[in-house]
C-alpha cells in the first residue's frame, strides 16, 4: 500500500475500524503464543538445534492458524461444507448452523445497540440498557405466557409488552435526570442491580413463576407468542423471524436520526444543549423522550431474546456474560452510533462469541480470547490517534468523534 492510500485511512472511519480489527487479531495472536504450551515450548528450545527457529515458527503458525480457522468456521462456516452442500444439495443444516447462530446472537444485540446509540447521539449515557432489556423480558414473559390469543394478536402484544417494560425502565432515570438533575450514569448503572433482583422476585414470587416449581423460573411462552425459526422448527437452524424485527429497528434508527424532526432535536440537544434551548427545544422533554425510546428499544431487545431463543426467563436472564445490554454499549461505540456501524459491530461481536466456542472446543484455546480480541478492537476504535501512530499514518488531525461525553458533562 503506498503512502497516499495509507494517509487516506486517517480520514476514513471504516478503514480505521478495519485496521483496529487487524490489530485486534494480531495482538490476539501474541496472546495465543504466550499462553499455549506447545508454542511456548517450541520457542524455549530456540537454541537446541539449527532448525529450531523454523520449527518454532511452524508450531506458532499451526496453532494461531488453527485457532483463527476455528473462529471463522464456527461463526461463518466451512468453505468446503458450502461447496459440498452446493454440489450435493445435502447437509445444509450443518453448513449453515454457524451463520444461523451468529445471526441469532446478533439479532437482539443490534436492537439494544440502536437504543444505546440513540441516547449517545443525544449526549446521554444509557448504561441501564441491560436492566431495561430485562424489564422487556419480564413484560414479554408476562403477556406471552399468561395471556392466550392467536399469534396475529399475541405476538405483537408480547413484543409491545417488552417495549413497554423497557420504556418504564427508561422513564425512571429520565424523570430523575430531567426534574431532579440526577446523573443518568449513576442512576442507570444502579438500576441494573435493582432490576436484576426484581427479576428474581418476579420469577419466584409472582404468578409468572412456573407452576409446580420452587426455582426462579417463569412459565414458558405460548407458541403463539414466539418468534419462530425462519426455516421452520424442523430445520435445526435457530435463526428466527427476530431478524426482521432487528432490520426494522435499524431502518427506524436510520430514519429517526437522519430524517425525523424529533431525531434532529435529539442531535441538536446532544451537540449543544444551550443552543437547543435557545432554538426552542425543551431539554427536559427531550431527555425523557430519549430515555423512553432508548429504553423501549432495549426492552424490545430483551423480549426478542426471550421470544426467539430462551422461550422463558429465569433468575439469570441476561445476567453476567449474557448481558446484551452491556455489550450493546461497546457495540454502539464500535459502530460510532450509526445504524450501519451497529449492524457490522453486532455481527462482529456475535461472530467472535459464537466462533470462540468452536475454537475452544477444537483447539483448547479458551473462549476468553474472543473477549480479548473484542476488547482490543474497541480500544483501538476509541483511540484513532494510536492506530494512526502504529501504522504511521500522517493524516491530518481529524479524528473520529465518539458522541459521548465524560462523567461531568
Amino acid at each position, binding site marked *: 500500500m503506498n503512502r497516499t492510500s495509507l494517509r487516506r485511512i486517517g480520514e476514513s472511519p471504516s478503514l480505521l475500524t478495519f485496521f483496529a480489527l487487524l490489530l485486534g487479531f494480531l495482538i490476539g495472536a501474541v496472546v495465543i503464543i504466550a499462553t499455549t504450551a506447545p508454542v511456548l515450548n517450541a520457542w524455549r528450545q530456540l537454541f537446541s538445534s539449527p532448525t529450531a527457529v523454523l520449527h518454532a515458527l511452524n508450531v506458532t503458525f499451526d496453532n494461531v492458524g488453527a485457532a483463527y480457522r476455528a473462529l471463522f468456521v464456527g461463526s461463518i462456516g466451512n468453505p468446503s461444507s458450502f461447496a459440498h452442500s452446493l454440489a450435493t444439495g445435502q447437509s445444509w443444516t450443518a453448513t449453515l448452523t454457524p451463520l444461523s447462530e451468529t445471526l441469532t446472537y446478533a439479532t437482539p444485540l443490534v436492537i439494544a445497540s440502536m437504543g444505546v446509540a440513540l441516547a449517545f447521539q443525544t449526549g446521554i449515557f444509557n448504561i441501564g440498557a441491560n436492566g431495561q432489556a430485562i424489564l422487556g423480558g419480564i413484560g414479554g414473559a408476562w403477556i406471552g405466557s399468561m395471556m392466550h390469543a392467536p399469534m396475529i394478536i399475541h405476538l405483537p402484544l408480547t413484543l409491545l409488552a417488552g417495549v413497554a417494560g423497557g420504556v418504564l425502565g427508561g422513564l425512571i432515570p429520565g424523570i430523575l435526570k430531567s426534574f431532579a438533575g440526577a446523573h443518568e450514569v449513576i442512576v442507570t448503572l444502579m438500576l441494573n442491580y435493582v432490576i436484576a433482583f426484581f427479576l428474581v422476585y418476579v420469577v419466584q414470587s409472582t404468578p409468572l413463576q412456573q407452576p409446580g416449581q420452587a426455582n426462579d423460573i417463569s412459565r414458558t411462552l405460548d407458541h403463539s407468542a414466539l418468534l419462530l425459526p425462519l426455516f421452520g422448527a424442523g430445520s435445526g437452524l435457530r435463526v428466527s423471524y427476530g431478524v426482521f424485527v432487528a432490520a426494522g429497528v435499524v431502518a427506524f434508527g436510520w430514519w429517526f436520526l437522519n430524517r425525523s424532526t424529533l431525531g434532529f432535536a435529539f442531535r441538536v440537544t446532544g451537540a449543544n444543549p444551550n443552543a437547543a434551548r*435557545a432554538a426552542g427545544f425543551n431539554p427536559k422533554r427531550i431527555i425523557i423522550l430519549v430515555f423512553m425510546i432508548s429504553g423501549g428499544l432495549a426492552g424490545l431487545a430483551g423480549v426478542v431474546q426471550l421470544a426467539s431463543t430462551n422461550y422463558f426467563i429465569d433468575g439469570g436472564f441476561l445476567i453476567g456474560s449474557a448481558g446484551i445490554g452491556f455489550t450493546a454499549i461497546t457495540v454502539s461505540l464500535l459502530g460510532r452510533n450509526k445504524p450501519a456501524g451497529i449492524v457490522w459491530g453486532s455481527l462482529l461481536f456475535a461472530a467472535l462469541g459464537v466462533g470462540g466456542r468452536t475454537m475452544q472446543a477444537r483447539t483448547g484455546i479458551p473462549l476468553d480470547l474472543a473477549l480479548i480480541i473484542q476488547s482490543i478492537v474497541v480500544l483501538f476504535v476509541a483511540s484513532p490517534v494510536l492506530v494512526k501512530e502504529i501504522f504511521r499514518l500522517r493524516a491530518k488531525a481529524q479524528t473520529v468523534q465518539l458522541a459521548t461525553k465524560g462523567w461531568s458533562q
Partner: protein
Amino acid sequence: MRVELRGITKRFGSFTANDAISLTVEPGQIHCLLGENGAGKSTLMNVVFGLLHADEGEILINGESVAFSNSGDAVRKGIGMVHQHFMLVPVFTVAENVVLGFEPTKSLGRLDAKAAADQIRTLSARFGLDVDPDAVVENLPVGLQQRVEIIKALSHDAELLILDEPTAVLTPQEIDALMDIMRSLAAAGKSILFITHKLKEVRAVADVITVIRQGRVVDTVSPSLSEGELATAMVGRSVSLTVEKEDVVVGAAVLELRNVTVRDDRGVAVVTNVSLDVREGQIMAIAGVQGNGQTELVEAIAGLRHVESGTITLGGRDITNASPRQILDAGLGHVPEDRQRDGLVLSLSVADNLVLNAAAKAPFAKGWNRRLAAVRDNATALVERFDVRTTGIDAEVGSLSGGNQQKVIVARELSRDITCFIAAQPTRGLDVGSIEYVHSQIVAERNSGRGVVIVSSELDEVLALGDQVAVMFAGTIVDVVSPDVGREAIGLLMAGGGQ
C-alpha cells in the same frame, strides 16, 4: 528585534492561505496586519510562531534565517504570542500561570511563590502592566487576563509580541488601556505585530499597516489614511462606514417591558425595574459597558432567563416567562450574544443551522419527517443572499470563520417571520465588509416596520444604528436619548453619570 518575512506561502490542499507574503517589523515598531475575516492573518501568525510550517519562504530574525519546528523554538528566539482565546489555567494565580513550565524552585523542587510573584512585579512595573500576582485568574476580568498573557510572553524575554485580534473581547475602556500598554512596550524597544480588522484601533496605534486580502499583501499604508481609505484597501471596494437610514413612520409598540427585574445565576438582581417600549419601524439601541445587565435582559426577553417580576409583551401577547419556543413563535428573532454557545451547533452543517429553530415546521418538515430538499433550498438561497463564505451548505458551521458564523445566525433569524428582532453584539468579530451588510439588513428590518433592539458595547454601532439609545447602568435604564446628543453625553451616561 528586526523580523523579516520573505515570500511566505502556506497552502492547505488546493487552498492557498498565504501567497508569497513579505513584510518587515522594525524594533520598537507597532506593525499592524489588517485584513478581513479569513484573509489569512491568523495563518501567517501561526507560521511566524512556529505552529504551522510554511511551504515556501523564509523568516529572518536580525538578518539571520531561522526555522521553527514548533512554538517552543519561536519562544526561544524571542517571539511571544497572545492568542485570541487565552491559554491560562483558570484556577491558578497570576504568578502561577506566568511561571508555568519555568517555575522558580526552592530546595526539593518546591515552588518558590515569592520569587514568582517578584518576577511579575518587576515586569509589571517596567511596562506599566498593573496586575496583582496573587489574584486567581478566573476571578479577573477579561482585560486583566489578557494582561497576564502579555506578561507571560514578556517573562520569556519576548522581543516580538504577536497580538491576535486582542481587542475582540475587550470593553472600550480595556481597549484604551491595551493601547497604552502597546505604546509603552514599543517605547521600551519591543516589536509588536498587531492583528485586527478594526480601523479605529489601527489608526490609533499602528506605525505601519500591512493590508492583506485573500492571502496576499495588497498594500503597505500609513495610519494617516482615513478610515474609509483603510476600509477600501482592506475589502477591495469602497465601503460605506456610515449607515444610510431613511425616515420611517414609527408605529405601535411591539415589545413592551414593564418593571422587569431579573436575577443572574448567583441570585443577584442584575436588571431592576426596567421599562422600555420598542415600536414598529424603530431601532432601539441599548448602550452600556458590558456587565450592566444587558446580557441578562436580552436572555429574559428571549425566554432563556427567569423574569423575577414585571411583564414583557411582544406584539400584544404576554410572553413573560413563556418558553423559548412560544416566544420564537410569537415572532421574536434573536441573535444571542455568545453565538457558539447559544446560537449554533458547531458540529452540524450550515444547512441544519440555518433551520435550527424552524426545523419542525413547514416547509422544513411534514409531520414527523424533515423535508431535506426544502432545508437545502433554504440554505442555498440564504448563503447566497447573506454572502456566507463556506465550502458548501453541508460544511460544518464550526469550520466557518467567526464572521461567517454570525452571518449564519443573522440569516436564520431574519429569514423567519418575525415582528421584533433583537440582536446582542450583532457585529462582534466581524470585518467592515460584513458589518456593512449586517447593518444594512438590520436597517431593512426596521424599514419594513419591525421593531429592532440592538445591544452593543461599541459606541459607534449604537450611534450609527439607533433611532433611540437606551443607556443601561448597574441594571437600570438611566435614560433613553436620541443619538444626536453625541458621544460624550452618552459616554457619560454609560459611566453612570446620569444618576
